[in-house]
Structures are given as structure tokens and as C-alpha cells.
């Protein structure tokens, strides 16, 4: 259809630039997201544990952090825990959500923070900024931020 006949006006260069900027920022902030999450038990067996990121790079995981997580969990839980643990940013800049596909993530978060955490919604644990800071201090390479489109809207 001819652009002048549509109800929506045609995109100008400026709109395209802004759209490009938005998608560029989204791509940039999520460039560290894993292509696939890997089990703790697998990573513990590797000499140099690493995870492939969505931008094609490799994220190194510290063996000391993996050892710390292994100490918290039994063998069955080590096979269930998928790394990195994803932290979704909520829109209001003061809160964030840890995505917990299983109860093992919840156990890890509770142990790291030293307090019992509960699901806010199934598979989602809400963290406040000081808690997030504490979690990130202890698990630098085994946690990762995720900015979703839900955050944006």
C-alpha cells in the first residue's frame, strides 16, 4: 500500500534512528545474556568453566564461586542448578527479580542473603537494591542481569 494511503505515517530517518538506538541499547544491555544455561555439576568438572553469551563472547565463571555454590548444594541440586542465575530488572529502578525456574535458585539466593526468601510469583523472587548488591558481591560471574521488554513498557 502506498505510504500516504495508510493511517500510520511513514517512518522518517529520525524515527529510524531512535528505533535503532532503542534496539541497540537493548542489544547492548543484554549482550551478556547466555546462549544456553549450563548445569553447575557440568561446570565443576571443567578446567576453565565458561558460558557462551548471546553476542558470541565467552563469560568466564570463577572456580571459587562455583566451589562456593557447590558447598551450599547437594549433588542432586548441583545437577539442577542452571548458571548463570538471571536477574531481571524491574522498571522502577529500586527492585529486581531473580528468575528461579527451580527451588534450587531460591535456596541459593536465601543462603547468600542469609535470610529466607519466598516466591512473589511462581518462579520469581523479588529483591531490593541492597539485597541485589549483596548477591552480586558474592556471585559476580554466576549471576547476570537481564533487561526484558516488560521492563521497558
Amino acid at each position: 500500500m502506498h505510504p500516504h494511503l495508510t493511517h500510520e505515517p511513514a517512518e522518517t530517518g529520525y524515527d529510524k534512528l531512535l528505533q535503532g538506538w532503542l534496539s541497540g541499547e537493548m542489544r547492548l544491555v543484554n549482550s551478556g545474556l547466555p546462549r544456553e544455561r549450563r548445569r553447575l555439576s557440568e561446570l565443576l568438572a571443567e578446567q576453565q568453566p565458561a558460558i557462551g553469551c548471546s553476542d558470541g563472547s565467552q563469560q568466564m565463571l570463577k572456580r571459587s564461586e562455583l566451589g562456593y555454590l557447590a558447598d551450599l548444594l547437594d549433588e542432586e541440586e548441583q545437577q539442577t542448578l542452571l548458571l548463570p542465575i538471571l536477574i531481571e530488572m524491574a522498571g522502577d529502578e529500586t527492585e529486581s527479580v531473580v528468575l528461579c525456574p527451580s527451588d534450587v535458585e531460591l535456596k541459593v539466593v536465601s543462603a547468600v542473603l542469609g535470610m529466607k526468601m519466598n516466591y512473589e510469583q511462581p518462579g520469581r523472587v523479588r529483591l531490593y537494591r541492597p539485597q541485589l548488591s549483596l548477591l552480586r558481591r558474592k556471585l559476580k560471574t554466576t549471576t547476570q542481569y537481564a533487561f526484558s521488554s516488560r521492563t521497558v513498557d
Partner: protein
Amino acid sequence: MAQLIKVRPTKIELVKLKRRLKLSQRVQKIVKDRLSILTMEFLQAARETVTARKRTITAMSEAYKAVTVASGYHGYVALQKELVACEADITVTAGPRGVAGIKLPSLELNEPSGGLRGYNLTQTSSLVDSASDTSREALRAIIELAELQRGLELLGTEINRTKRITNALEYIVIPSLQATIRFLSMKFEERDREEKARLKRVKVMLARKEG
């Protein structure tokens, strides 16, 4: 006052501007979220750097003290003879770790497996053991400090860049879009009012003609 964008005063341009404003606000939200995360990571890294720096200085001075005492006890030549045999390459695993779109360095000292020290335990005293332990601790502290300090620099640079983008959006792009939208809306309202007044006058004139 925000600068007006030069556009044709048409409804189609108004729709375009409103869409641009929505997009800009979405970009601003992402950039602000990112900035807050980077700032939090920066403050944390700064606190950790201060602690790591203190720990490095303490570890280094303890290591030097221990080596001095050990060499004083055994004699410099004898100590060096023992230590030459246990020289080992230090290996550090280095790789990037991503934080909200930037790659920070991640360094980890590979500890040698097994508890063997490499020197003759029967011919040396516990002073050499202490010197070895404190030196290893100093090495660990240096590596940790290197990682934190480089990360701090990278975070600082990225915060500056992100802040410029946020400020540009907050103080220039969005206000000028809002001002232009307001200007165009007022212009259209004014045009509508003029149109209504003209129609009324035409109606009156027609009524007069018929009458």
C-alpha cells in the same frame, strides 16, 4: 525553554512527533535502568577496591617481613638455593564478565594442585613456610586488586557515556519533542476555532441573504 523542532504544521507530523516521543521515553527508561545498575556496580567496586588495596599493602608488608626474617635465619644464599628449586610459573585465568553491556575483566589465580611446596622441608624452618604462605597471599591480593581497579576504570568511563545519553534525552530530545507537540496542538486548536468562527459568519451571511 526547549527548542522547537522545525516541522510542517500538519496532523501527520503531530502523529509522527508523538511516536517519536514515545520511542524516546522508552530509550530513556532503558538507559536510566542501565545507569542505575552501573552506578551500583561502580560503588560496590569502589568499596571493594579500597578493602583490596588495604589488604594488598598489608599482605605485601607481611610477605617482605617474613622473607627478611627467613633470609636472616637461613642466610640469603641458603634461602635462595632452596627457593630456586621451587620456582613455578604463575598462571592466571583471565576472561571477560559482562555487566549491563560492558565487559569487565575477571582474573583468578590458578592454585597449584597438591600441597607440595617444592623446597626441602627437612632442611628449612617454619619461617620459610610462613614466607611462602604470606607471599602467596600477597599474590592473590594483587590479582584481586588488579581486577577490581580495571573494572572500576571501565565502569567509570561507561557511566560517563551513559550519563551523557541520559542528559541529552532528558534535557534536549524529550523537552523539544514535548514543546513541539504542545505548539502543534495549540496551533490546530486555534485553526479549529478560526474555522468555527468562519462557518458561523458564513451561516449568518447566508441567513441574511435568504431573509
